[in-house]
Every structure is written in structure tokens, then in C-alpha cells.
């Protein structure tokens, strides 16, 4: 992947930074982007973020980060804002969300999931006395979310191909229900696999789990 970056040495340097530092920087920069209301200032900030993205990730890395559905979602939101609030606000939404996407990819594209997990767990550990806060669960959820991106993309592609083979045109409304159903079905086995691999962050189940159906 480093061969794709415009500046492999910068990429190597960013990759060596601690995950906690990068996550903290992401929080600060994302907050800054949310606070900027001027399209002109946001334009300059977005150009800098884009330049950083090209230097560290390269065009191919940025393209991977964007993904068709994310670009479509950002485009829809910008279009909606254009219709409701006018062109300047639409430009702000477009620049802000695009920059956030690139910043997030700058972190996940240069940091191992296990390092991000460790950083999240360490950051949340002091707050575990608060209700509903579990550092281990948050860390595992994040690792699973990162892993799931490629899986869900693959599932969506398979469903699209299956629908096309039956003569159906691609449509988000046709895709969403079977995709969600499949994600939920696969998630059950993933949960079992995590249990089977001795993960102890989960509290013991109080009631017996239903047996699975045999696989076809």
C-alpha cells in the first residue's frame, strides 16, 4: 500500500505514530471541522486534508476510502442541503463530510486495528465505573466494525450479482432487506466464534442460548 502514497516516507512516519495520538488528533480536527461555518475557510482546510490524504494514502487509498455508497450518501446529503438551505450550506456539508472521511481513512489506513483497539480500551478504562461503559466491549466493537467493512461490501456485491442474474436492476431498496437479514444471520455465528475464542469481556449469559440450525 505504501507504494501508492505520494510520500512513502511521510506515510511510514504517520504509521509509526501512536494510535492514541492519531485518534486524539482525529477528534480535535473533526471537532474543528464541525465548528468552521465559513465555506471559504472550510475550503482551505479541506484542501489541506486532501493534500495530506494524497501524500499519505495516495489516490488509490483515497478512492478505497470513498466507496460508492459513501460518496452517494454524502452527495445525497449535500443535495438535500442545497434544496433546503442553499448552495453555500450545501458546499459546507460536502466539504465537511468529505474531509471527515479522509481524516478517518488517514487514521485507519495507517494504524493496525489492534492498536486502535488498545488505545480505545486505555482511554475508556478510567470511565468504567460509569454505567453502560465497558472499555473491552468498545474496543472489540471497533475491531469488528473495521473488519466488517470489507465483509459487508462483499455481501452487498454478491446480492447485487444474484439480483442481476434474475433480471432485477440494482436498487438500494431491493438490497437493504436481504443485506440486513444476512448481516444479522452471520453476526450470530461471529458472536459464537468470539465466545469460542475465550473472550471474557462479555458478561456470562444468564439464560441458555438457543441451539443453531444445522448448516445446509
Amino acid at each position, binding site marked *: 500500500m505504501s507504494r501508492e502514497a505520494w510520500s512513502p516516507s511521510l506515510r511510514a512516519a504517520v504509521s509509526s505514530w501512536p494510535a492514541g495520538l492519531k485518534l486524539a488528533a482525529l477528534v480535535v480536527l473533526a471537532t474543528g471541522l464541525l465548528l468552521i461555518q465559513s465555506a471559504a475557510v472550510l475550503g482551505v482546510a479541506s484542501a489541506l486534508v486532501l493534500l495530506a490524504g494524497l501524500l499519505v494514502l495516495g489516490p488509490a487509498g483515497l478512492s478505497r476510502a470513498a466507496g460508492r455508497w459513501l460518496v452517494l450518501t454524502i452527495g445525497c446529503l449535500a443535495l438535500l442541503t442545497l434544496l433546503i438551505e442553499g448552495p453555500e450550506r450545501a458546499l459546507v456539508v460536502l466539504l465537511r463530510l468529505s474531509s471527515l472521511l479522509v481524516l478517518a481513512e488517514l487514521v485507519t489506513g495507517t494504524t*493496525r*486495528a*489492534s492498536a486502535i483497539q*488498545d488505545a480505545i480500551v486505555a482511554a475508556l478504562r478510567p470511565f468504567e465505573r460509569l454505567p453502560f461503559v465497558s472499555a473491552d466491549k468498545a474496543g*472489540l466493537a471497533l*475491531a*469488528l466494525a*473495521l*473488519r466488517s467493512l*470489507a*465483509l459487508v461490501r*462483499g455481501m452487498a456485491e454478491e446480492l447485487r450479482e444474484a439480483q442481476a442474474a434474475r433480471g432485477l436492476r440494482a436498487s438500494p431498496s431491493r438490497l437493504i432487506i436481504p443485506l440486513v437479514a444476512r448481516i444479522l444471520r*452471520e453476526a450470530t*455465528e*461471529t458472536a*459464537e*466464534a*468470539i*465466545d*469460542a*475464542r*475465550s*473472550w*471474557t469481556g462479555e458478561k*456470562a449469559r444468564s439464560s*441458555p*442460548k*438457543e*441451539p*443453531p*440450525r*444445522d*448448516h*445446509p
Partner: protein
Amino acid sequence: MIRFDEVSVTRGERRVLAEVSCVLPERRIAILGPNGSGKSTFVRLINGLVVPSAGRLDVDGLDPAADPKAVRRRVGFVFQNPDNQIVFPIVEEDIAFGLRNLGRSRMEAAEASRAALDGFGLGHLAAQPVATLSGGEKQLVALLGVLVMQPAILVFDEPTTLLDLRNRNRIAAAIGGLDQQAIVVTHDLDLVAGFDRALVLDGGRIVADDEPGAAIAWYRERMA
């Protein structure tokens, strides 16, 4: 040793396993049977992923329903679809996951992961994103993720179902080379031909229990 003592599992009104009793001391045991016969439930009982509705199960002196954590340290489980088993996006991170759960430091887990990958001739995959692996490589990574935890017993739930012939053969060779006891649920009858014992389940009951040659012949005839 694994001992089922009149173990039943019910789901609503349906009895998935019905008063199953058996002792499993052999090194290689195949679990055969048609879809919906209770095979997956049978093996999930062994490491506490499913608990019995009635009866008792003993795994090396431990009760999986009462102490699933201790049992899972002894019993590794390899699922049919490695995509559902692999948690982390990078190969060596995923293999280290189980070791971290056992309390090993990040460095120890990373070293053990690399050693395990090298041992299987897969060292070149260590830094690869899981999404770029073939089905067979993913299944081997899933197996390694379990093996590094050094379980005494390994359970496989249809490990070759999603694989092509070459990858199926790699997994078969990996299972054949294991030191541990292996219990394999499968529809791949060639995979288990050299095993020590085969159980055939149907309707939640053990309907045949023999050496694989005889059990497979009986199963083929019954399913014809």
C-alpha cells in the same frame, strides 16, 4: 474424554437432540448426518456454545454448561465460514486475538502468531488484510487462530464446505496432522474415511456408531 449422558436439547416444541449418550475417547471422530439432524448442536454442546436442556455433559472432567470459560480453553472450535470467525482485519492480529484473551501480552501474542504462521508455511500472510485471502487461506487462518491457543480438543463444523478441491485438501492435511483430538462435522465423506470412528445423527439421535467405513456405507445406503 468427552461423555454425553442422556443429553437433550429442545428449541421451543422441537427436540433438536434427544437423550444422546456416548463416550468419545478416539483421536479422530466424524459426525455425519443430513441437514437438520442435530450435528452442529451436538458439537456446540462440547464447548458450551449451546447448553443442554436435560442430561449432562462432561469434557475432561468439566461441565461446559457450568464452566464454559474453562472448557473453551480446552476445546477449540473452527466454524464453517471463516469470515464469521475472523475478528481482526489483519491476519497476525486475528491470530493474536485468542492469545490476548488468555492474558498474553501484545508482544508475546504477536511472536506466537508469527511462529504459528511460519510453522504452517503461511508467514508471508502475516501482514495481509484478511479480505485479500482466498477461502482456503482464510480457513487456515481461522484454524491457526484456534491452534495457537493450544486446545486439547478441536471441533470443526463443516470446515471444507465452502472450499475448492485444492483448499479442501490443504485443510484435510492440516486436520490429519494435528496432535489433538479432532471432532469433525462434515458432509465430505472422503475427508473422514481414515478416522477412528464415525457417528451418524438423524432426527436428533445417534442412529449409527461405527468405524468410518461401515458408518459411511450405512449412511450412503440410508440416504439413497
